[in-house]
């Protein structure tokens, strides 16, 4: 009986959940059905490297490209620093050590597809729960996201 009286209250969240999921389904169905998916409904690649425009491993030279670092730093200073510090939590997580536990492709996909990542990727969902604010898309192009990765790699090496 006591459970029954909560049913009306439960219906709305369930409907909302369903409708939110429904929105995401378009993106998901675009992917190749043949691909093997993991428990979360993501491919191995997606689980490891994120969901977004970067769909395969990119070649990264061991040597740091300083020109790219400067480009990446400028973008970081204009578009990211409102919410991220290199050291210490701000609105979002610190970025100084991000290259230690995320792949370059993962970082790029998060920058390029933040709403998709927080909606569909288990790591994104976890981060949203922890930081409570969804990361906005900052009109960063793919080559610019690559530059930010270079800036973050360079930072990691020097700190």
């Amino acid at each position, binding site marked *: 009986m006591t459970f029954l009286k909560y049913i009306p209250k439960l219906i709305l969240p369930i409907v909302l959940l369903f409708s939110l999921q429904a929105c995401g389904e378009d993106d998901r169905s675009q992917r190749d059905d043949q691909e093997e998916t993991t428990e979360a409904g993501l491919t191995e690649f997606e689980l490891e490297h994120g969901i977004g425009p970067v769909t395969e491993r990119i070649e990264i030279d061991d040597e740091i490209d300083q020109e790219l670092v400067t480009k990446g730093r400028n973008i970081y*200073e204009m578009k990211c620093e409102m919410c991220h510090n290199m050291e210490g939590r701000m609105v979002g997580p610190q970025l100084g050590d991000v290259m230690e536990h995320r792949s370059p492709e993962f970082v790029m996909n998060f920058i390029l597809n933040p709403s998709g990542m927080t909606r569909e990727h288990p790591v994104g969902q976890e981060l949203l729960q922890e930081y409570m604010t969804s990361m906005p898309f900052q009109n960063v192009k793919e080559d610019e996201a690559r530059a930010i990765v270079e800036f973050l790699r360079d930072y990691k090496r020097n700190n």
Partner: protein
Amino acid sequence: MKEQKSKTLRGFLFGAGFVAIAAFLFTGCPSQQGMMDTREAAQKVYVAPGEHDEYYGFFSGGYSGQLSVWGLPSSRLLKVIPVFSQDPESGYGYSEETKPLFETSYGFIPWDDSHHPHISQTDGDADGRWIFINANNTPRIARIDLKTFETKEILELPNTGGNHASSFVTSNTEYVIGGTRFSIPYEADLDVPIDSYSDEFRGALSFVAVDQETGMMDLDFQIVVPPYNYDLGRAGKGPSADWVFFTTYNTEEAHTMLEVNASRYDKDFIAAVNWRKAAELVEQGHGRTVSAEYYHNYYEGNQGYAINDIKDQVTILDTREIDENFIYYLPTPKSPHGVDVDPTGEYIVGGGKLATVIPVHSFSRMLEAIDNNEVEEVIDGIPVLNYDATIAGEVENPGLGPLHTEFDGRGYAYTSVYISSEIVKWSLETFEVVDRIDAYYSIGHLMITGGDTKNPDARYMVGLTKTAKDRYLPTGPKQNHPAQLYDISGDRMELLLDFPTIGEPHYAQAIRADKIVDQVAQIYEMEENDHPDALLRIADNRVERDGNTVHVYMGSTRSHFRPDNIEGIRVGDTVYIHLTNLEQEWDVVHGIAVKGANNAEILVAPGQTKTLKWEPTRTGIYPFYCTAFCSALHQEMQGYIRVSAEDSDVELAWRTGTD
């Protein structure tokens, strides 16, 4: 029991009566109303949630001074673009960036009366680059960019009283025109008796050149003409593309009680101006330069503060001084208001508001009359052509008070008729009325989608009416102005929808949405933000003092300001808060308001920088906050500014996130 029954019966009869009356009210007089089956009409205007309209409609704001944007056929309000009036909703006219747009030779003017929006054209077709609109009271023309839907430029017109015959463009937007409704002494600030009207007063027709790349306006020349009231104007198209036609009334030259005194003559004139020839005369040095102070206000880059370019002279062509003919008067009955040119460029339709017919001039016959020198008289160097020599036909029985005409490109014209409150459809072949439909109530302009261009896209027509009275739920003694949407795709005009508008729309224009949609900006790209006080590097957020002037360079993103704690402001300071919205997502807007600021809030679009001026007069702690609901943590988007006494030694300090 018996009584009970009779009550039920009475109730039933009453109910039936009510239904009958309601049925009559809703369906009554269908032939008169021209209202199609309600369900069919509803289907034609229904745009499903999330779907887009087929047309953008731009309605002038009239005495609101603004320009409203509507989706047609659903007739949903999309936006109000502030143009000539301050807009506390957006901070337009309150921010330091936009305030200079309102500067004129008479000082800062926070209002005007906007009448006739006109979309830029290429080869006689609306092209969707810009839309121009006139200010009637303190004569000006504004240009609105249709990438951002923002007012980018305002040009004042000197020597003009009431810029009513404006802001119509020529068929390749070579010029946008202005015309004086109230003739005034041509020389600026001339202090003369009003009854020196015929000697001292003159009319001015302005030709404003438009830069094809940037849209920037430049007052190329003015034509000085006899002191009549120049009411409306339209450029020709096709064969008549080199001409602009202006209506005149008050050829009686009355300066008091015009209601009576300007309505005495049977005919006034349509002034046909060969603008290409006039421009050539100016280029060849036939013009004269006179001094005239007027403001040209515009932005130099993508963003920043509008600047005031104060002009001090204008080139004039005075018809009394120039031997060559470049302007002719076509006699037209009677105090004509509108003048409209059909899609072929051949017919020039006058709206003789006191006339019993709609006079239609022929452009080709006009040229013949000029060649054959069929001139009745010459007024101040302007030949008056013979009426019978230029007229192509008169539409009989058009109703009382025909005003404005647009065209469907299928051989028909549609004229609004004010006094009898109707629209008449007539044939350009036979000049006979073929259909008429009521307007609710007292129609001014009408507009057909593309109806003033070479290629009308004539599915819908909008009638812009002057009084609502009983059309909607009553809202007091003053009701908003109505508009009606008609389907004109068939043989008969059919009323689809009736809706209230913003301000007092005079003229309106509509353009197929696909001509604009793809160019509309979703954000201001941060990389292109060239505002001198933009926060381009987040770490550069700061507060700087220069004497009693303090500049705050602030950034915003969901959901905080940087800096959000500021100390060291003093009573007597003038504080400029330059807020850069660092968001780069479509439609994520932040605003700022400071307690006690004698100003409006300032809304800042993504990637934009705007400046709020604040002059604190009392010590204390001043909260400021984001006025736009931007995120789940919007309520947290706030800050504090400490204001100390004038002689305080509290150091200037600012910080974010270091409690």
